[in-house]
């Protein structure tokens, strides 16, 4: 089987796909690529199905030796990238000969990128997905991030010649990492914000805390006071839920967040903007802007069109 040897693993490199829906009642988060649009685009660039497993890179990428020829594409925030010591342009499909060494360095900007390999990464399907559940310790490669010396198989490619893409589409998954406006819908516990906190929620500029990961992006710098209220009952949550813990500094739940939570859910980031959470570097400035459902739906449709301007679903 075609395989890759991990020479250096990078800071946090995991196998992901589009996640593991359907097991929320068992307490299993959906997980999957933190920016599903970027992951889908990377897959499309090498001719894969949207749901093929790929590698999610965090802050610094891996060095990989290919034991078979392969075509790969890296999409997301811009990382340093070299093949056999020669720098290559970021954001285009790369054809690698047998024995090639692909070295992904640090993120020049932002946090994450997705490396798709034609055919898709071959790890066992667990509960319907190849995604790594880091907290649960299952899925992906033995439920953990890559380590030096790991060998990862990849499946035979579905097509020899991926459909050509205009170059400007290649970075569609890459979004501002230093400042962002996240559009929000009202949350079910919005009325638990103290009188002035609603204005603060929309007027404040938050700073992304370094204590942010796939489970959530913590927004620091501004504290949102809550009205006095009895303890909340735990309820199902979603990625993109803006929760306010007792500290008042909001947390935007990420793809690996627990499926239930007990903090007031004051707002919800629209689906079209969820992928942005993956790119916000510590210190990034974030503003929240209120929109209605119609706007959120239009934004989502437009995001899908950007991904595939020809409107061809894979």
């Amino acid at each position: 089987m075609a395989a890759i040897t991990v020479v250096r693993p990078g800071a946090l490199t995991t196998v992901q796909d589009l996640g593991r829906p359907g097991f929320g009642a068992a307490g299993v988060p959906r997980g999957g690529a933190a920016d599903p649009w970027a992951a889908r685009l990377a897959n499309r660039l090498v001719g894969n199905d949207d749901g093929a497993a790929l590698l999610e890179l965090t802050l610094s990428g891996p060095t990989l030796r290919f034991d078979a020829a392969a075509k790969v594409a890296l999409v997301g925030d811009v990382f340093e990238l070299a093949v056999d010591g020669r720098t290559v342009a970021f954001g285009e499909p790369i054809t690698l000969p047998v024995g090639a060494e692909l070295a992904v360095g640090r993120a020049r900007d932002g946090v994450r990128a997705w490396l798709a390999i034609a055919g898709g990464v071959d790890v066992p399907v667990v509960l319907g997905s190849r995604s790594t559940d880091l907290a649960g310790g299952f899925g992906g490669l033995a439920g953990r991030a890559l380590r030096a010396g790991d060998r990862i198989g990849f499946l035979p490619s579905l097509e020899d010649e991926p459909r050509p893409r205009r170059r400007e589409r290649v970075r569609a998954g890459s979004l501002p990492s230093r400042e962002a406006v996240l559009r929000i819908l009202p949350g079910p516990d919005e009325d638990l914000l103290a009188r002035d906190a609603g204005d603060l929620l929309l007027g404040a500029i938050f700073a992304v805390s370094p204590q942010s990961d796939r489970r959530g992006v913590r927004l620091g710098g501004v504290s949102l006071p809550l009205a006095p209220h009895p303890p909340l009952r735990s309820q199902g949550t979603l990625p993109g839920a803006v929760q306010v813990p007792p500290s008042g500094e909001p947390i935007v739940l990420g793809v690996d967040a627990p499926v239930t939570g007990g903090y007031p859910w004051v707002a919800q980031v629209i689906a079209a903007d969820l992928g942005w959470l993956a790119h916000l570097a510590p210190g990034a400035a974030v503003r929240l802007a209120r929109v209605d459902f119609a706007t959120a739906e239009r934004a989502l449709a437009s995001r899908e069109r950007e991904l595939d301007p020809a409107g061809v679903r894979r």
Partner: protein
Amino acid sequence: MSAGHEIHRVAERALLVRFLDADLERAVARTHAVLSLLNDIDQDQGERLPLKGEWIPGAGSFLVRFDGGSAAEACRENAVDSGASDDGGTRGAPRRAGGEGSADEILEAGAVEAVRVRLDEILRLFPFNGGLSQLSKGREVEISVAFGSERAGESGDDLAGVAAECALPASEVVARFCAATYTVAFVGFSPGFPYLIGLPPELQVARLPAPRPRVPAGAVAIAGPFAGIYPSATPGGWRLLGAAEVRLFDPAAMPPARLVAGDRVRFVAR
């Protein structure tokens, strides 16, 4: 008269249904009754309610996600085919997911609002206003526990403190804890973690002021009205009474969680 409910559209493709009963047990009972009813409507009456989605129970609430979900259904069907399912897929809270194609393909944008309206009608007409004892019982599971730090190590570290706070001897805390029958209200926090209600009021204590960085797998713990068992080693702020030998989550099993909403649990001291 029931205490009513509220339905929030919490995202483009998700609804949150909350039951407003002041009593937690009644709210949980109503959640389970409604999920069971919706499952029956979905499965038996052939009514083409656009209710297919992933239903995630909370403490007296449930979330419905209409975005994606065919993977779980496919897994479950495979498991049934191979005889690996031990619940036949019909008992307890439903965990349905879109069958033919992902649910978001079936469900057009406007349909979420239509489902909200339909759910609201169903909930208004639904007569159930009872307690957990009136619900058909889930599986009964007996879990053997070593209590206290001498027998359970770290997993029993808080028994003495809880006993002091409750002004009871530790042996009496254990006796009362084991005399109760618990119901799984929902599974959350981490894969397979059961939130159990039925904890005697005199044993209800606050969680730790700061969570432990690591609670051992199998730790039996209490916080507020709930008892629970940590399926894996995680950070946690609940008060630890003892250690259970039970595998609560197995990603290779179908269903993967040993306990699901509606199951009854008894603890036995060993």
